Every structure is written in C-alpha cells, then in structure tokens.
C-alpha cells in the first residue's frame, strides 16, 4: 500500500518536472525575453546590462534551477501585456474559473444522472430517445457553437439571461464570488450549461449503460423476489452500485472542465484564467502561458493522485499485496 502510494507520488512529481521543463523552455527560448522588456531606443549596452541582470547569460541548468525555485515560491515572472506579476493576475482570475467549473460539474452530475437513470428504466419511451439524440448532439457539437446557440436563444431572442461577464460579484477576502448576488447567479447559468454539457452527456451514457448492466444481475432479481418496492430496488440497490464509476469519471473530468473553460470563457467573456490564457496566446505573452500550463498540470496531477488514493480506500482489493489478489 505504502509502496504503491510512494510510486504514484514519484510518478506525479516526474510529470510535473517534465511539464516544468517545457514551461521553462517556452519561457526562456520562445522569443527573446529582453526584446519584450526594452523599448525601441534602448542601446546595445543597456540591452546587455538587462541580459546580465536577468541572468540570461548563466548556464541553462543554473537558469532552470532558478526558474524552478521561483515557481515553487509562486513567482511566475511579469506578464508582457499587463506589466504585472503573473501570479497576481492568475490569483485574481482563479475564483471566476473555479466557480464556473464547480457549477458546470454539479449541473453535469445532477442532470446527467437523472437523464441516465430515466433512459435505463424507460428504454423505449420517446423521451429516452430524445435524451439519446440530445446526448449525440452534445458529444458532436463544438463547445463554442453550443454557447453561441444558447446566447442566441436565451439572451438575444428571449432576453432572460446575460450573455457575457460575471454580473455583480462580492469580495470575500481575496476571493470574489458571484454566488451571493442575483445577477451573479443569473450570469453563471449559461456558461455552466455550455461547459457542463459534454460532461453531462458522458455521465448520462455511463449511468445508462451501468444501470442496464446492474438491472440484469442476480441481486436485483433477488431484491425484487423479496418484495421490495420498485423504487427501493432501482434507487437503493441499482443506482448506488452504478455511482462508483460515475464519481471516478466526474473526478477525472474535473481537470478537463477547467481546461475546456478556455473556450467557454471566450464565448461568454468570462473573466477567468481561461480567457487570460487565450489573450496570452493571441498576444504571445509567454510568462502567462507557461504559468497557466504549470497550474493546469498541477491540478490534473493532483486530481489523478487523489482519485488513485480514494480508490485504494474504497476498493479493499487494491490494498492486498501483489500476488495475493483473487
């Protein structure tokens, strides 16, 4: 068990080190950092001085160690566009992205599980057919197209919901939240649905398939034979056993939700990290790009690690030493 955990932690650290190396290579070699700082009338001598001050003449290995040391202390450099520390920019934008990702995941879980259960229990109803068709569209269509469609329906035509921004936010310490105002909550609806739709279809299909599988097993037949109500059999016995893989997938997908928020945030001009990243790519702002890459890698690796650990807690078979597994 301990050896397994240790191995996973070492693997996670290795992945982070590789991504760190890529981020450093981008930071150092894509474009000349000096050119991004100086103006057109800076003399050659001044450029050389800046180059020495930044430590760009040191051996690459020394530079990498220095970069890694800075990153660990949360120093990602200065943004070329905004002339502000990248860490500060990311910290300002992070609450918006995390709140959006949270709402999208909750939406995907709740609606996806409900639709999946319905499709499994009433396989041949027309509503189940409709859900299946919707899920096909949800998987096929690009995220930005779905976002535009929703904006056209609910903002342009019906005028019910705002099409961009977070609405009014409330500041709690360094965290800004849209959960506490009516306009903030309204602004969350369309982006959350857009971002969560793909996950929702995934969860719906998964729940449907797992439920159909479970409903065929002996213990369900036995539960029916014992005279339990249909509701108890379906919800307490069948649904409960389908939820383990669903939670796993939802957990693993949380990372993709944060990464895919790049697109949703652009469609809805949502002031989060994804929009910051897209603007950085458009304006070739390397410090923000490399910092964002590192941050996403950290989130992904952490989620994978936590899911692995939870697995060993939930499933006792994984705790047996190798060779004794049944």
């Amino acid at each position, binding site marked *: 068990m301990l050896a397994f955990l240790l191995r996973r932690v070492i693997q996670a650290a290795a992945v982070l080190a590789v991504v760190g190396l890529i981020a450093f290579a981008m930071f150092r070699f894509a474009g000349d950092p000096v050119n991004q700082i100086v103006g057109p009338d800076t003399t050659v001598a001044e450029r050389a001085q800046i180059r020495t001050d930044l430590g760009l003449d040191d051996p690459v290995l020394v530079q990498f160690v220095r970069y890694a040391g800075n990153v660990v202390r949360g120093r990602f450099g200065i943004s070329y566009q905004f002339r502000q520390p990248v860490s500060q920019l990311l910290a300002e934008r992070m609450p918006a992205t995390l709140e959006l990702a949270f709402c999208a995941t909750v939406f995907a879980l709740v609606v996806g599980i409900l639709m999946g259960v319905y499709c499994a229990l009433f396989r041949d109803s027309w509503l189940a057919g409709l859900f299946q068709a919707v899920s096909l569209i949800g998987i096929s269509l690009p995220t930005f197209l779905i976002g535009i469609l929703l904006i056209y329906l609910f903002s342009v035509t019906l005028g019910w919901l705002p099409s961009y921004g977070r609405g009014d936010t409330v500041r709690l310490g360094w965290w800004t939240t849209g959960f506490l105002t009516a306009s903030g909550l309204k602004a969350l609806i369309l982006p959350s649905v857009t971002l969560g739709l793909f996950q929702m279809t995934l969860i719906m299909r998964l729940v449907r398939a797992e439920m159909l599988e479970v409903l065929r097993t002996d213990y369900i037949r036995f539960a029916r034979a014992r005279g339990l109500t249909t509701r108890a059999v379906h919800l307490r016995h069948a649904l409960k056993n389908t939820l383990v893989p669903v939670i796993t997938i939802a957990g693993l997908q949380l990372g993709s939700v944060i990464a895919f928020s*790049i697109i949703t945030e*652009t469609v809805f001009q949502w002031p989060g990290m994804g929009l910051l*990243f897209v603007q950085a790519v458009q304006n070739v702002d390397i410090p923000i790009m490399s910092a964002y*890459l590192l941050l996403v890698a950290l989130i992904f690796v952490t989620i994978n690690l936590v899911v692995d650990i939870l697995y060993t807690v939930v499933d006792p078979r994984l705790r047996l030493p190798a060779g004794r597994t049944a």
Partner: protein
Amino acid sequence: MSGRDIDAGDAPPVPLVEVPPSRLARWRDSDLLANFLRSKTAVAALIATVLMVGLAFASPWIAPQNPYDPAQLDLINSNLPPIWQADGQAPYYLGTDDQGRDVLSAVLYGLRLSLIVGVLGVVTSGILGIALGLIAGYAGGAVDTLIMRVADVQLTFPAILIALVVDGVAKASFGSALDVGPLIGLIVVSIGLSFWVQYARTVRSSVMVEKGKDYVQAARLIGLSPPVIMVRHVLPNVTGPVFVIATINLALAIITEATLSFLGTGLPETMPSLGTLIRTGNRFLFSGEWWIVAFPGLALAGLVIAINLLGDWLRDALNPKLQ
C-alpha cells in the same frame, strides 16, 4: 449477392489451384458492405458527407463569389438577409456579411478549408502516431518506455490546450505575422501533435501481438531489416483500428481547427475557415444579422455530426465482439 451468382456461373471446371476471388468480388461479397447497406444512418451520413465534400471542392465553380478576392466585395451589398426574407437579393441566397461578402460562398470556401486542414491534421497525427507506435511496439525496452511515458504525460492534457500552446510558442518563435500558407502548416502541425497518442497506443498493442507470429519470424529469418518488416509486413496487419481512429479523429480535428480559429489563433479573416466565419458572425448576433453566424455554424455542425455517425458505424462494424 448478385456477385456470388455470377461467380458461380462462370466458375472454371475443376481448377487445379483454387483461384482467389478478385478484390472487387471480395468487397462485394463482404459483410462490411451488407452491414453498411442495412444501416440507414450510415448510408445517410455517407451521402451527407460526400455531398458536403463535393460542394466544398466544387466551390470555385459553383460559388457566386470568390470570398478571398476583396475586389469582388461591394459594401453596397452589405448585411443583406437571406433570399426568403423581404430585403433578400439574388444571387446572395444566404445573405451577406458587413463587408458585402456572400455568406453562401464564404461557407462553401470555408468548408473546403476546414476539410483540408482537418484531413491534413489527421494524416499528420496518423503518420506520427503510427511511426512511433510501430517503433515502440517493435523495439520494446527503453525506447518503448520513453515513447509511451511521453504519451501518458500528453494524454493528461486536453488536445485543444496542447494545440493552443504549440500554436502560441510557434508564433513567439517565428513572429505572429505569418503568411496563410505557413499558418495552415502551423495549425496542421498543432493538430498533429495533439492527436498522435491514440494511434501510437493502438498500433503499439497490435504490433506486440503480431510480433510473435510466424510470418514475422519468417521475415526475420530471410534477413529482412527491421524497418522493412515493420512497414511491409506488420503495418498492413494493424491498419483496421487505425482507420476507425482516423474517421473519428477527422471530426475532432475539424472541431479543433474551428476552435482555434474561433479563439482567434487560427486562420485570419481574409481567408476564413468555418471557425473564423463563426467568430466574425458572433459579433452580429445582437444586431439581428443572425445569418452571418447561423449558416457557417450549421455547416460545421452538419459536417461533424455526419462524420461522427460514419465513424460510429465503422467502429461497430469492425468490432468482432458485436457480430
């Protein structure tokens, strides 16, 4: 079925060695074709795909306007609605945008561009993935570990993020004012680098199975070199799954290009793909010119759904477990 009757009627009297049927006869006789004709969805998807590909590549001859030629645009004709609305004018059947560009022509040309970039992206990622998968599976050992570890690390990131990073880094290195030609190349490479992992994994696992078979041993015994064995003998036996991945990835590659263009890091507005057209049209959503964004969006959605349905059918048809 008729193929079989003809074959039976024309069969030569008692051949000494059984003559294998021709490729065409085998194809007409195959389960794959019968399965295809039985699936209404697959036939409809194929017809839709062929129709769109045909229209896209015929666009220079059938489109009323060349949208890449600024001389053909006239501001007097800007923001015209589609022909069935009150102010609609022929030949602008689907209306015009704010530059006086015909939406139908722009969609046809954009469809062609999206298809070209998508296919090139799939080919690039396929070649990269197949080559690395062959090498990893055939060589084994440290080479295998290295390639598959890189694949594992990459698989933890969504493809669109990798494509964006490759795109951004390349622009930082070469300067952001690239010509359209190199720009298309850059997008193709970004897509290729984002999607190679799946091919590599599939090919590798198939190669590891094939490697132990007699024909590979025989090829090795007669002294063929590993590259020849890999490409001439192992590769043809592992192509089935690769085609399925390629079909499904074509839809993904088209979506990736459209997304890059929509985010403003893809093709420019002077040479718009469907994604660029949607990006431009999105600005007019609130002023009521819905047709500027609706028709490129419909074209993209139709193309992607048709290709996805084909890919789904192909996956099920080639899966022996489902038969």
